[in-house]
Each structure stands twice: as C-alpha cells, then as structure tokens.
C-alpha cells in the first residue's frame, strides 16, 4: 500500500521542497502471463482494473496502453457529469457513475475535484421543452433529483444568458440536475491508476497491442510491442480504436469513429458557476477553476482517426454559444483539440461479452463517456470477473443489435453529451 496523501504528507513534503514524493504508480515491464489484461489505460480501462482488484480481488492483472495513460478521450472531454438520461438502462448506469463520483476522491485518496455545480439543459424550442419534460418525468420515476426550471430561474442561475424572448431560439425553460457538475478528468485517470497500482495491478504504458491470439473460440493472449502476454481474459476498452482492436480478434463492431472537438478560452473572472448545455443550437459551456470557459459541441459527420476536427464544426459551436451568451463574443480562444469518439447507432454504450470466449468489450461511449467512468468500470469489472453481464450492464450487450432492442438516446440528447 502506498503512503496516503493527506495534509500531513503535504506538509512533510513541503519541508523537503517536494523532492521526495513517491511515484504515483510504477512502470513495470509486462509479465509473461496475467489473469486478465485490460487494453486501454483511459478512465474506463483504469476504473475497470481498479474495481477488478478492489471488489473482485483480481490483482494479477495488467492494463496495457499504446500511448500514455489518460492521454486519449479521458483528457480531451469537457468533464461534464450528469445522469439525467431518458431510458431506464441509461439512468441506472449513469446514476451509478454519478453517485460513485460523489465520494470518489475519498475512495481513491486522490482529489478528482468533483464539483456538483449543477447541469442546466436549455429548452429552446417547444419540441425540446416537451422532450425534456418527458425526460424529467422518467427521471423522477427513477428517483433522480432533477427538475424543470422557468426562464426566470434560468436567468437567476446563469445571469450571463441571453434571455431576449425575441431571439431565434429563446429560452423557454430548462431541465436542471443540481447534483450534476464537473470533475478533473486527468485526476480521475491518475487516481484510478494509482489506486489500481497500489493493489498490484501493472499499468504498462507505451505498449501497443498488435494482435489477439485465439485458440478456436477462446482468447489465449495478446501480441504487443513489448512481447507476447498470455491471458485468458481480455477487456477491450479502447474507445475510438475499438474497431481496429476487435478486428484483430475477428469481431466486427457496430461502431464508427468520429472526431469530437472541444476548446477553452483565455481565463477570465468567474461568470458562470454551472454547466449549461444548449442542445438545439449545439453547444455546451462551463468554467474551469482556472477561469477558462470550457466549450464543446457536436462531432464531425464523417469518420476520422486524426484527432483533428473540422473547422466548420467548431464554427457552428461557437456561433451557437455566442448567440446564447453574447458576453463571450470578444473572448479569445486559447486551445482547441479533438478526440476520436466511438459512435454506436443508438448512441448508447456496448458493455459485455463477445462471441469470442474470454474477450470482453466496453466501448461505444461516444461523446459522453467521462461522466460514466466509475459506473462503467464498476459493472465491467464485475462482468469480467464473473463471466456474465452485471445486471446494470446487461441491457448494453452486443446482442441488442441482433434483437433490435436498442437503447435510443440519440433523440433524447440530439447533440453530443
């Protein structure tokens, strides 16, 4: 077990000019064999490893990562956390994740800066107003703490919003989840990595998977750039690159990889203390603790592996947000970046077993994976350990595409979420 982070360890290390901090995780060479190997050290992969070790006592496991941990979509999102989805299976998994976020910092002994500052989803057309009302009813039946708010309340929560009733998309109200918010995405990856590592999990970076070894219908190992690793259980959690990995095992996926962009402005004084999502005009915004406005929008409409998005998509997002928040029109943007998201037809994730024995997949989180990291890792670890889908993961199996049993969130959250 690693020394715990605390105010005392901080003070002690300050005395030594912070020269003696222990490394948060090791960088071991891969062993020849593991009980299970997770491919992809993003938030979902590391959370899976963490819960495998913590809840299921599987510590002889590894997480292999092509680049550096948390360097993919985990470090590229806009850190929004909410659970107010329309469909029951979605509510169950996203709410599990959101509730785990509440005490994740204590659980991991790592400050993930979860900030339940509230998520406000604007209703800017009559249709959207009704759709969110329907979601509100569904969420209340499921016991979620959410409510509709009036335009006057919206203005009170977000004073900088454009409340002109004569604009093209006036604010007709909003759907509010006060317990939603943001977190620090890097810290989530780092905290899970440190937690898993301290229980004996090997997190192996710069180790690209080049092949999946099968014997008949079973997996027996992985070929990587650091040699062959024998294992009977493989969990693939590679988001935008899930199709390329699954192709190695001969499993075709209902996934298309597209680029989703985000950007931040120059830092300014606090102007907005919640997350605002404007789905009709395609944009969402919050303010980081550093003062930057964090902005995201929709994906490019075509496949892309380059982590660089198209300018029209960005322009569209900015146009929408300038309409919604006229005050930001003169702000300069500091950085922009893209992440490759794995889109499914129904915009819901895929979690569970595959036709190949010992091969498990957790992907398809598309544009909304960050908020789900703890819940996703929790149920996926259970699925791998017990070789059957966790009850919350069960509706998200690959077989739903054969049975036509879709979990349609694409209409409920028309924009990226």
């Amino acid at each position, binding site marked *: 077990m690693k020394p715990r982070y605390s105010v005392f360890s901080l003070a002690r290390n300050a005395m030594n000019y912070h020269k003696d901090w222990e490394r948060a995780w090791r960088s071991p060479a891969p062993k020849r064999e593991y009980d299970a190997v997770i491919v992809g050290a993003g938030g979902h992969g590391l959370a899976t490893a963490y819960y495998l070790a913590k809840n299921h006592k599987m510590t002889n496991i590894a997480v292999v990562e092509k680049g550096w941990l948390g360097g993919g979509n985990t470090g590229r999102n806009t850190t929004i956390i909410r659970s107010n989805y329309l469909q029951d299976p979605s509510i169950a998994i996203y709410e599990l994740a959101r509730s785990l976020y509440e005490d994740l910092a204590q659980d991991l002994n790592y400050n993930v800066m979860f900030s339940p500052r509230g998520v406000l989803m604007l209703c800017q057309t009559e249709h959207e107003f009704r759709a969110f009302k329907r979601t509100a009813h569904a969420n209340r039946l499921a016991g979620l703490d959410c409510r509709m708010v009036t335009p006057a309340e919206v203005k009170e929560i977000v004073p900088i919003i454009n409340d002109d009733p004569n604009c093209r998309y006036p604010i007709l109200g909003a759907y509010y989840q006060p317990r939603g918010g943001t977190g620090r995405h890097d810290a989530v990856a780092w905290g899970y990595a440190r937690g898993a590592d301290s229980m004996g999990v090997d997190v192996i970076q710069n180790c690209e998977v080049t092949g999946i070894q099968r014997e008949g219908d079973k997996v027996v190992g992985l070929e990587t750039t650091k040699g062959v690793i024998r294992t009977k259980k493989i969990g693939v959690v590679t988001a935008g690159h899930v199709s390329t990995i699954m192709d190695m095992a001969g499993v075709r*996926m209902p996934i298309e990889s597209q680029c989703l962009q985000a950007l931040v402005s120059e830092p300014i004084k606090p102007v907005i203390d919640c997350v605002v999502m404007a789905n009709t005009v395609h944009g969402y915004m919050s303010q980081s603790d550093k003062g930057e406005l964090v902005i995201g929008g929709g994906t490019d409409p075509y496949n*892309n592996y380059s982590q660089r998005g198209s300018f*029209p998509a960005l322009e569209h997002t900015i146009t929408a947000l300038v309409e919604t928040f006229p005050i930001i029109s003169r702000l300069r943007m500091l950085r922009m970046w893209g992440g490759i998201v794995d889109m499914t037809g129904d915009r819901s994730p895929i979690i569970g077993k595959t036709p190949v024995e010992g091969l498990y997949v957790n992907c398809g989180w598309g544009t909304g994976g960050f908020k789900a990291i703890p819940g996703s890792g929790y149920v996926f670890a259970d699925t791998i350990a017990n070789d059957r889908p966790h009850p919350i993961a069960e509706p998200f199996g690959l077989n739903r595409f054969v049975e036509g049993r879709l979990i349609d969130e694409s209409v409920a959250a028309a924009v990226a979420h």
Partner: protein
Amino acid sequence: MLVLKCPVCGAEGDETDFHAGGQAHVRRPATHDPANVSDDEQRDYLFIRHNPKGLHFERWRCDRGCGKWFHAARNTVTMEFRAFYGITELPPAELIAEAKGPWAEYFAERLKSESQA
C-alpha cells in the same frame, strides 16, 4: 477543411457544400433475397460498419451542386481523398487492391459474385 469534387457535375467545394452520408457499398439483404434474411444479416446491414484506420469508402451528396449522391475513397488518418466515383460504381482497381481488413474481404466477395453473375 475537406475539399471535394463531385464526379457527376464536376462541382468543387469544401465539406460544407457536400453532405457526408456514411459508409459506402452497404447492401440491403432484403433487396436481393427477401425470404431469407437472417437476424445477423439484418444487424450487419443496419448497424455493423467498416471503421478502418486508413483507406475508407463512403457516400457523399453534392448538396449545393447537382444534388446527386456519389462515392468517395478517403484516408481516415490523413483525410486525403483518393478518388471520387459514381454511386453505382466500384472504386478504381488500384484502390480495391489497396483496401485492407473488412474492406478487402468485402471487395473480394463482391467481385467474385459479380464474375459469377
């Protein structure tokens, strides 16, 4: 910004002048043999998608030109367009030869079935 050229009317423009229509060459099984469509075939048709990192084949529509759908071959890493070709056509032979993975399998099967017919 992607720059495209419509093979039908010859109009050139950027991606905002065209509409991306997803994967090319998706065939509806019920069109060919309505009586014998398995659940798996229907799933493949509706949901399974080629998602290569590299050479990809897709449909686009000439939105602000002739309005016709056409095909394009594009690299999903470099974003470079390799060819534009008609909606009823297969890609140029050299690109078929270059295709990998599921696309290579698809073209092999397609060419085999067409040579038999």
